[in-house]
């Protein structure tokens, strides 16, 4: 199967590979997929007090399309508000990377990873405020 040049580029030169402290209150972590299905994505976002995504990191176990999808979204979410990031659609990812139909699930997983990271951040931020209020 031939991969698009963009997929190959992200596979060979992945952007924003790494991990952030998942216990930090300004970090949201999304872990989606399953090893048995051949894809696991971990996407982390670091959010400023103003609600802007300052940084993003990923680690992905999966095929080239899964690696490229997650690498791409780390580039896309940086500088966006949480609402803007949540609006990224799998079809945008699939179009950008020219994914074939059998690889659409990789873009779906990347969209899920963004949503999971935002949800995790919000739940932690909410807890933080509760703690402050309680304190």
């Amino acid at each position, binding site marked *: *199967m031939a*991969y698009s040049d963009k997929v*190959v580029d992200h*596979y060979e030169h*992945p952007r924003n*590979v790494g*991990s952030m402290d998942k216990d930090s209150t300004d970090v949201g972590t999304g*872990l*989606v*997929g*399953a*090893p*048995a*299905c*051949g*894809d*696991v*994505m*971990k996407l982390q976002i670091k959010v400023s007090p103003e609600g802007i995504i300052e940084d993003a990191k990923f*680690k*992905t*176990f*999966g*095929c*080239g399309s*899964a*690696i490229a999808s997650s690498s791409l979204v780390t580039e896309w979410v940086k500088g966006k508000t949480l609402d803007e990031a949540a609006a990224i659609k799998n079809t945008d990812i699939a179009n950008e990377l020219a994914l074939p*139909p*059998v690889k659409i*699930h990789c873009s779906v*997983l990347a969209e899920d990873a963004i949503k999971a990271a935002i949800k995790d951040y919000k739940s932690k931020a909410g807890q933080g405020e509760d703690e402050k209020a309680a304190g």
Partner: protein
Amino acid sequence: MTIPSIGRRPGQPIYLDYQATTPCDPRVVEKMLPYFTEKFGNPHSRNHAYGWEAEEAVEQAREQVAAIIGADAKEIIFTSGATESNNLAIKGVAQFYKDKKDHIVTVVTEHKCVLDTCRHLEQEGFKVTYLPVQPNGLIDMAELEAVVTDKTAIVSVMGVNNEIGVVQPLAEIGALCRKKGAFFHTDCAQAVGKIDLDVNAMNIDLMSISGHKIYGPKGIGALYVRRRPRVRLVPMINGGGQERGMRSGTLATMLCVGLGEACAIAKAEMGAEAERLRGMRDRLLGGLKQRLPEIYVNGDLDNRVAGNINISFAFVEGEGLMMGVKDLAVSSGSACTSASLEPSYVLRALGLDAEMAHTSLRFGIGRFTTQEDIDYAIDHTVKAVEHLRSLSPLWDMHLEGVDLKSIQWAEH
């Protein structure tokens, strides 16, 4: 013998997929060429010299094929390949003896053409037992003994597995079948020319042989059919009664000659070749193990052909790995390019988890592989695996001591 152009053309990956197919040995091609042009006669023409010289070539090829498995030339039937041979052996025997016997025994790790043939016979009313294998890929003789009955017409067990290269105990199986009165068929597409085979010592009644797995041409194979005690079968292709009536149709003289020559070369060089391939196989495995932790050999390492190694690389995904080793023509245990995401049924039969089955590579080493190829393959594979592990959240979890089985994954 090394020919630089075979298996490493400029701009092409290095060929390490010798279980899929092999290039034709140039010595084989040389022998075949006259039979395309000046010696073009129909080997079944009895009236003139064109036919006689073609017939003589076919009969010499038949002798060469017979010689490599210790058979008599009269017991060799030429076919289009191992798939046809397997179909003819299993369907032919099952149908001929169906009034007395209706049971077939085979193994879950057989090639698809054996399994599919058996499925087809099940639909016709035959009973089929699919024997499991042990975690090393070998059958358990006690389990085989328990399932073969006086209703068993044929037991079909492959000599060498195409994915994991393990060698089944053919002599033991043959002895058991002879004792129980069942015919023993073995698919030896991957075994001929790789291991010593003797149809009499091993009590083999039918054996499938492939041309293109042993540096012969594609489109030709053979079926050994024992004459004493006689094995009878219903032909699948009817016609002029060629090949003792078991396989009608004009023989392709040049392909028969090619298969014969491939067998003759294999027979003469098998010992030295196996030693050379084993050296390279051990170098490959040793080199990978030295530089990469958490890699696992699939299938028994001792009972295995020299030119095969199948390895799972934990915590990296198979298709991503294939993309990383793009300069090597190897085969993946994962068929994830299809939408089904089905890992290899052979690896699953060994008891491997889906994720370990997904992440395997089969390296097939053969006649034209060089040590430089192996060293390149080691370096290229190590770099790909290290790159993917540096990206893998599962590798991180492993380093942190997290048991991946303890995590509730969202299966999708």
